[in-house]
């Protein structure tokens, strides 16, 4: 405990009370200090600064900053799904139900949602676990998606985006001291929410490497290696999978998912399946298989025992509605006593934002064939996913024409994660500056082209390899320009430091 003596006592007229601050870098919660979130880290802060400089009239070799760092579809110009916005507008201002601007199917859904809200308003608190009829709709959606495997609405917890639910589950899991401290297995490369949450909670991070040579696939022998090594210094209890992957975009095969489930069963691990990109699957021969579905198709030996939580949200896929903070988790085979604690835990923040819950409802309950809005809906959805698929392919193609850049196929999700080879001199200079080499690269790229990417070091990568993550979200024309600029930059950078 820090103890600073007060030098002078306060009196009415004269001496200043020498007061030390209560909150200093030394007295702050140490876990908060450890937290880093690369997606919005120093490179983004610099990007914001540059934007301000441009606005103030500074001369630069580019006229705008292109934020290809964050998976924010609408910010990059993707159009929202009309039907969803209509229902949300109706929920926000129900007087619109009386008018003629909106189709009947949108009105019907809005009415249903509002009936389930306190005082018929999305501004009222909801149940902490989420509005009941929304949870029922989510359960129905999951059941349909998974070929009829039953889904109990009581196992559905609505959340503030998927991140909130992931952190909540981690809070339940993390305990113990020293060698008994909870270890959580996460993929490398990973979405830095996981490393940030683990740092925040003081959990032990157990890293398993995805196989870059094999399109970022997951190998159970690597899981085993990581687990065995970790058992020396912590108590491994959970295994996190991101499928489709972020930043890697790989879509796991059914066989792989079965192998992972078997591994989790053998090693007594709690499975956390982050499936927020489940509709973002582009590559030929790839298909999304939900962990729950595979689990149940493996028979009661697994489906009755393996503890699994699956996460989904309204932020990605074809909706891209990050700002609404809609999401849910489904808990399978959770100990009933723990479930009570979970229900309690989610009540501390009262409830997830109700507009997000409303949006989630209409996402899992979209227009059906025959309904007035169906044609527009399906057209918009197909087109959005189609364009993303084209951009995924385009990105892979262009990057692979650049000597020194190798890009695995972007099978799904919203990002490319190409590997870059850096000249030795560049690596040296980076080290002198105290920067990770790919951060050094990305900072230069930002300064020279205005393109904002996230260095691979923010996601984790094998020692001695370097990457960056770029989203496939900019509109196609802009993306082509960005790809060209990155290509040119890489070539000049390589030359400059050779």
């Amino acid at each position: 405990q820090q103890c600073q003596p007060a030098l002078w006592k306060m009196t009415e007229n004269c001496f200043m009370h020498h007061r030390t601050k209560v909150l200093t870098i030394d007295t702050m919660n140490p876990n908060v200090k450890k937290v880093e979130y690369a997606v919005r880290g120093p490179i983004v802060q610099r990007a914001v600064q540059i934007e301000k400089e441009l606005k103030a009239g500074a001369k630069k070799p580019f006229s705008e900053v292109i934020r290809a760092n964050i998976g924010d579809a609408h910010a990059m110009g993707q159009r929202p799904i009309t039907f969803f916005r209509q229902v949300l507008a109706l929920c926000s201002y129900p007087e619109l139900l009386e008018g003629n601007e909106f189709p009947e199917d949108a009105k019907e859904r809005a009415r249903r949602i509002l009936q389930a809200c306190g005082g018929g308003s999305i501004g009222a608190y909801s149940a902490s676990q989420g509005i009941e009829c929304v949870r029922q709709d989510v359960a129905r959606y999951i059941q349909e998606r998974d070929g009829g495997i039953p889904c109990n609405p009581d196992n559905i917890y609505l959340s503030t985006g998927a991140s909130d639910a992931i952190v909540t589950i981690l809070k339940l899991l993390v305990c113990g001291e020293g060698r008994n401290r909870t270890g959580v297995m996460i993929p490398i490369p990973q979405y830095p929410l996981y490393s940030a949450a683990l740092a925040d909670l003081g959990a032990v991070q157990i890293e398993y490497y995805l196989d870059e040579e094999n399109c970022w696939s997951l190998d159970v022998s690597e899981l085993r290696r990581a687990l065995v090594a970790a058992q020396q210094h912590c108590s491994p209890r959970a295994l996190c999978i991101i499928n489709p992957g972020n930043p890697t975009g790989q879509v796991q095969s059914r066989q792989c998912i079965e192998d992972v489930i078997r591994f989790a069963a053998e090693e007594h691990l709690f499975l956390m399946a982050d499936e927020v990109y489940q509709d973002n699957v582009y590559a030929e021969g790839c298909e999304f298989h939900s962990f729950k579905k595979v689990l149940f198709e493996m028979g009661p030996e697994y489906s009755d025992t393996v503890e699994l939580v699956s996460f989904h949200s309204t932020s990605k896929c074809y909706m891209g509605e990050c700002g609404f903070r809609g999401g849910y988790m489904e808990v399978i085979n959770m100990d009933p006593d723990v479930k009570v604690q979970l229900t309690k835990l989610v009540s501390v923040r009262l409830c997830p934002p109700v507009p997000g819950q409303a949006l989630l409802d209409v996402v899992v309950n979209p227009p059906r064939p025959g309904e007035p809005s169906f044609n527009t809906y399906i057209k918009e959805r197909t087109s959005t996913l189609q364009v993303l698929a084209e951009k995924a392919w385009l990105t892979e193609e262009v990057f692979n024409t650049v000597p020194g850049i190798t890009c695995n196929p972007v099978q799904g999700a919203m990002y490319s994660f190409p590997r870059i080879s850096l000249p030795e001199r560049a690596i040296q200079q980076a080290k002198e500056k105290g920067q990770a080499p790919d951060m050094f690269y990305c900072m230069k790229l930002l300064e020279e082209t205005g393109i904002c990417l996230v260095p691979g070091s923010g996601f984790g990568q094998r020692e001695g390899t370097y990457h960056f993550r770029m989203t496939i979200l900019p509109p196609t024309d802009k993306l082509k320009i960005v790809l060209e600029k990155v290509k040119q930059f890489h070539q000049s950078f390589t030359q400059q430091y050779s």
Partner: protein
Amino acid sequence: MATACCWDCRGLLLSSYRAVLRSKEGCSLSNHPVVDAAGVEVVILFLFSHTQGVKKPYKEVIDICWGDAHSGGTKPLTFVRQVIAVCIYPELLQETTIAPDVKERARRLLRECPGGSVGKYCGIPFVQDGVCEFISKRDGGVPISPLHTGSPVQFVLKLLVHGKGLAQTGVLTPIPCYPTFVMGLTELGAAMVPYYLCEDDGWCLHVEELRRALATSRSHCNPRILYVINPGNPTGHVQSRESIEEVIRFAAEEELFIFADEVYQDMMYAEGSQFVSYKKVLFEMGPQYSNTVELASFHSVSKGIMGECGLRCGYVELVNLDPSVKQSVTSAFNTERNTAVIGQIALNIMVDPPKPGDPSYPTFSQVSLHTVEALPGTSFQAGSGGIYAYLRLDLPQKALLQAKEEGTDPDLMYCSRLLEEEGVCLVVGKEHGQQEGTYHIRICIGTTSTRLKEVLRRLKSFHLRFLNEFS
């Protein structure tokens, strides 16, 4: 001493409770949060009686627990909802029925969102600027950059709370206090250090009591935070300027970080009463305080005239933060990302509402709050602000004995019976913490006058019967 809530049966019974209540014809219960309501133990009893098909003398259960205006029948403000609707569905800009100031505000907000869509991740700087201006106008001081987030109190607590044993961060907490705050402390691993508000003195805060609490706490934790709620929840007490100055002086002497929860600042109802913010008072106390005392001020769209609890948005203003932590705070804030954009729109309107002369100004009106008269056998320290009435029950000796026999708390017994016999659900004082041997109930008065009248009618009827039975 505020007791930890009894969680054992809640989760298990809550879903079945809801299902049964909903299925009962002629008896409706609006959705309300699954929280620590003391009401939960009460409604569990209710559930059982209902499953037996017992006929009740009322058709509807009135749930007057929550500080949730809309659930209580208050209508959302048209301007707020129109702006939100237009932002969500900009095609509405063509609508002739929507007022020009609505359209102008929506256009402005949409311009500030990259891609022109509210579907993007949080952080609209324009909203932040609006909050700065609001604070500046309210307090006349120099505004610091406020941060908007879904759970501002939790966010700041997390920066400070850590340690175990003697090093465990202690948080001075008023008794009575609303239950989710205490739950939040437990979740983060903070030590709650209770200080008792003085009921006989209108629930005001006495610095000697703060001193006592602080002194005793030092033997088992490291007290660093002083949490005040002004206007109070559940008490409704509004601190005088002198009281605020005393608290600031105390915090300065004892090196405490002040958390000033001011979410009810717009809900002032007593004649002549006035809210003054901690920030303003701090700055008017001169540089030896205004340059040093660390303060976090909180506000939200949940209460006040908008009552938009479901949108989950508030802000915190951090004053006199040490420069060494600024970077960490910014990073932590960037990682949070849990403020829905819709909430930020509401926040923007809260700090920059329609002005006299604007087409929407006439309909953007104050919620009227209704006062509660004391009933015989109760006493009521009427507050001047907030949205609750916190009544003290002077329970007859016989009632206390009965409760003992039933193995329950007297106020819980009272509330269970009230729910059974009259269909009124309110919050038991036990959930807020109270002095030993005192019993209270909390009623939300931020509701329609019809509803409140009905609640008071039923309460009075029950209360007189109760007194009679146990006289």
